[in-house]
């Protein structure tokens, strides 16, 4: 029993990256903005349009996330010193986004898709931070705590992370073209498409043997479609048709771009440059 507790304690401990993991890097806020859009950060971190006095185009803290174990608040990502990320260091930001560890060394809930963001090069994450730091600071209002997450639950997440968090960085496939690799990076890294489109195994980790093959929605309502055979199944004429779908969604009559969170994803994807959307479409339609 004591041994068990000790093992739990050791295994569930946060494993942050050391400060030395931050490379010498001249931050590129434009690249950061692109990755912020690809990553859909705003979808979760923006206030609902009905919150009085807050600009819902800025990520000043998102609508509450109700989970069976408590209510979560996606925090303020604007550079406000008190309530935002204004006073965070590079490594604190990187550890939150890529290891799911908060500034005060607690585990963050994987509703925040750091499991995918973990695959990004650290330099790209620093670019996102540079973009966020360029936004106007917004002081977010205090929110009622809801059901606080018990310390032990957060700590227990460490066990899940130990089993399920794969921190292997994304690597290009040298047998494939540059466009295919760009698509692969955007889908597997910032885009976190697999968080919904890849079904989960017994440990609630992505089942890599069914990569992007669709399944039950992770939030429990409805089914997420497979991203294989998108053309063979006649849902899209060709890769160019899929690009048009990403750019316009249901406003051009594409029927499977709205429900279950995909509407938000699509509106973020629509902000990416044409070339990046072509790369994503090329990559996805290469699955046979």
């Amino acid at each position: 029993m004591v041994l068990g507790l000790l093992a739990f304690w050791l295994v569930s401990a946060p494993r942050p990256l050391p400060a030395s993991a931050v490379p010498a890097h001249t931050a590129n806020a434009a690249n950061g903005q692109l990755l912020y859009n690809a990553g859909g950060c705003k979808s979760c971190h923006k206030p609902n349009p009905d919150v009085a006095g807050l600009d819902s185009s800025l990520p000043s803290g998102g609508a509450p996330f109700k989970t069976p174990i408590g209510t979560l608040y996606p925090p303020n990502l604007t550079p406000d010193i008190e309530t935002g990320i204004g006073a965070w260091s590079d490594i604190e930001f990187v550890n939150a986004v890529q290891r799911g560890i908060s500034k005060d060394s607690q585990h963050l809930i994987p509703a925040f898709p750091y499991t995918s963001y973990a695959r990004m090069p650290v330099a790209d994450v620093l670019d996102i931070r540079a973009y966020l730091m360029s936004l106007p600071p917004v002081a977010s209002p205090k929110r009622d705590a809801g059901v606080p997450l018990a310390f032990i639950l957060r700590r227990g997440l460490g066990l899940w992370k130990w089993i399920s968090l794969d921190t292997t960085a994304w690597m290009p496939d040298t047998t494939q073209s540059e466009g295919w690799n760009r698509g692969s990076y955007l889908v597997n890294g910032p885009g976190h498409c697999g968080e919904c489109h890849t079904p989960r195994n017994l440990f609630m980790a992505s089942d890599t043997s069914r990569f992007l093959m669709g399944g039950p929605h992770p939030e429990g309502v409805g089914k997420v479609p497979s991203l294989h055979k998108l053309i063979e199944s006649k849902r899209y004429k060709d890769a160019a048709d899929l690009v048009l779908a990403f750019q316009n969604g249901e406003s051009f009559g594409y029927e499977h771009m709205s429900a279950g969170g995909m509407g938000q994803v699509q509106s973020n994807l629509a902000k990416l440059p044409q070339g990046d959307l072509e790369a994503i479409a090329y990559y996805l339609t290469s699955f046979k």
Partner: protein
Amino acid sequence: MLSSKLLKSLTAGVLVVGLGVTLAYAAADDQIKARQTEMKANGKAMGALAAIMKGEAPYDAAVVKASLDAMAAADAAAGEAKAWDASSMEGATIETWAKPEIWAEGSQVGAKYQAWVDARTALAATTDEAGFKAAFPALGASCGGCHEMYRKPKG
């Protein structure tokens, strides 16, 4: 021992209740089917309009009118069949992709529906290809606006 009269009335009671339940099932199932028939008609009409938008088919005012008429007819038929009544979710035996939030406190489904009606009216008022292409995205967005909140993804 139960008297035979009591037994008979009990049996009758069970039958009546059973029949009532069966009828409720059938009613809800028919309402769901009507809703899905309405939406399938919308999907079909949308296909013809989107083809014009994407340049896969030439602009044809007659196709635009026929498609919008089909949507209006589907809308009316669904109304008649009570396809959007809360009762459609009670005792159904077939699968529906409508979210129960449609009928919950604070639902915005009425506004979503109105946006669709308004977009249809605006598109019907267009008379040429340029007008059509300017007005069409709002129609598609009105479908998406409701689906985003009130339709479960079907996979």
